[in-house]
């Protein structure tokens, strides 16, 4: 278990105050905050590149404040991966294994490179690798050391969008499979939602809210958290049936269809972005390719410039974002009913 207590950091223009958090064995903790909030500085202090001004960093019951980085057994995945350019992929991965007693290194090496599907690039040098490959190699290099804590500094931000989404889901699966305790920083709300067991929202050098993803997204503690995490709807549910990649999730006895690969009975979180929800009025209900269609009650209309935020109740709370013109055309009004539609592919599914 990792504990960070009353941590203050002063480093140039970055000031962090009263950072308190603990991470359980095997948990993925995500710090979510805007760029320039001091997230990287926090990681660099935890790993030991800089001393904190005040407070303690406790690794499995031992105070780590005075240990140099090489004796903390904390892994670090840099934003640009920092692979050693003069070494091959294999040499990169095995770099640290001579410094720490690791049982069955060869066996472990094989297992990790297979899990990360990098078996066929082991002889290559980093400058010939794609961003996604570099990311996997740096992950392998850190994982083989069996770190007590693995830190990630926005590791997906330098990848292009398509690669990023695939890797994001895969990263969580791998970390969970290896039971790797992790601290992850990002400014991307969806990334936090998909990867985290728990999220800490950072603002102005402080952690303002810590909670499970659904708590952060559904019950933000203040205006700042609300505006930063956005209005994505997060729902908790249980898989009721599974057929050919189409999963039916039971949320408060309402069935939502999603595209995912999750066995029946498992608990999942669903994330629905408000811009992916379409609304129509009841009497004009038509057949549509969207798998999810519900009759909902309009709770509240909030104009936000060109768009209007619509809070709905479909047996579960849902937020939609539609244009002002649409609101007028379909004659949407508070306390009236409307038909809500969203596609099965528009739902983020997060396995617990």
């Amino acid at each position, binding site marked *: 278990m990792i504990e960070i207590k009353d941590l203050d950091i002063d480093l140039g223009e970055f000031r962090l105050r009263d950072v308190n958090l603990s991470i359980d064995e095997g948990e993925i903790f995500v710090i979510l905050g805007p760029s320039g909030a001091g997230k990287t500085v926090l990681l660099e202090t935890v*790993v030991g*590149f800089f001393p904190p001004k005040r407070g303690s960093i406790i690794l499995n019951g031992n105070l780590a404040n005075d240990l*140099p*980085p*090489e*004796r*903390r*057994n*904390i*892994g*670090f995945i*840099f934003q*640009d991966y*920092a692979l*050693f*350019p*003069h070494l091959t992929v294999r040499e990169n991965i095995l*770099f*640290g294994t001579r*410094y*720490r007693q690791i049982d069955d290194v060869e066996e472990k090496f094989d297992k990790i490179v297979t899990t990360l599907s990098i078996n066929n690039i082991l002889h290559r040098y980093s400058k010939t690798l794609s961003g996604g490959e570099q990311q996997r190699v740096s992950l392998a*290099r*850190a994982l083989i*050391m069996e770190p007590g804590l693995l830190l990630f500094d926005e590791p997906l931000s330098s990848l292009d969008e398509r690669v990023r989404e695939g890797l994001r889901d895969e990263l969580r699966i791998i970390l969970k499979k290896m039971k790797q305790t992790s601290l992850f920083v990002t400014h991307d709300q969806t990334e936090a939602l998909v990867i985290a067991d728990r999220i800490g929202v950072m603002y102005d050098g402080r952690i303002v809210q810590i909670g499970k993803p659904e708590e952060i997204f559904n019950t933000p503690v203040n205006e700042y958290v609300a505006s930063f995490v956005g209005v994505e709807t997060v729902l908790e549910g249980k898989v009721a049936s599974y057929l050919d990649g189409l999963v039916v999730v039971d949320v408060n006895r309402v069935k939502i269809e999603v595209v995912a690969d999750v066995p029946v009975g498992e608990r999942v979180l669903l994330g629905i972005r408000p811009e992916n929800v379409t609304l129509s009025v009841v009497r004009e209900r038509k057949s549509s390719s969207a798998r999810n269609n519900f009759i909902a009650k309009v709770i509240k209309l909030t104009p936000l410039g060109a768009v209007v935020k619509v809070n709905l109740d479909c047996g579960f709370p849902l937020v939609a974002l539609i244009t002002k013109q649409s609101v007028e055309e379909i004659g949407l009004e508070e306390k009236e009913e409307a038909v809500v539609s969203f596609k099965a592919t528009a739902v983020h599914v997060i396995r617990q």
Partner: protein
Amino acid sequence: MKFKRVNAMYYIFSLMGGLLILFILLPILRSFLAQTPSILIKEATDKGVQEAIFNSVFLAVVSATIAALFGVPLAYILARKKFFGKSFIESIVDLPLAIPHTVAGILLLFVFGRYGMVGVLFERFFSLRFVGTKLGIIVAMLFVSLPFMVNYAREGFEMVDVRLEQVASTLGATPFEVFRRVSLPLAIRGVLTGWVLTWARAISEFGAVIILAYHPMTAPIKVYDVFTQLDLKHSSAVAVLFLVICLAGFVIFRFLAFGGIGKSGKR
């Protein structure tokens, strides 16, 4: 290239640069052409000349290596650490470049001479003298050439991404292991360039060397010696022989350092 822009400036700059290159090459070529074969052979087979050339080459290798041994650690500290008085230290490293060489020789005599403090210590404990010995030649060569070693190695280290060193430390490497397995291999070009230029500077030293040791002779002193004892013809023969050795050494070392003489040392 489809879009070709010819500008008069480039012609003028090329012409000016070309003159400079010619200024270097012309005396070298002219000296080769001025040789009388019989004198060249006489000097080439002269034992004193051979010894002087060997001394120059070998002692320059020794002093460049000593410069590397002590200069690389200093370069690493200067590249990586901030500390009070750092720019003062950097100025001191460059100081030998600004000191006239005969003056450098006189200064060294104060410390390494028979009554200088290091001279006395070495005489008492190791029975070694600097004045009139190869040791003295090494000291003189080292003093005037070490700035090249420190500065080029430092540039090499500065080009290594600090994050690579940081990630190595998170993988359990101690500072020395980080230096040995990450920083040094990645800065090796800078270090080798520094070594070659230090060697080249050391082998060409005359002023400081002649004050500490006229004998045993190095090649530049032999050239001067033959010039004053005999004539230009004989001394130019020694000069050309030495020049060939220097150029060969320079080419070989550059080749080892950069993997080709055509390429530039800098990227």
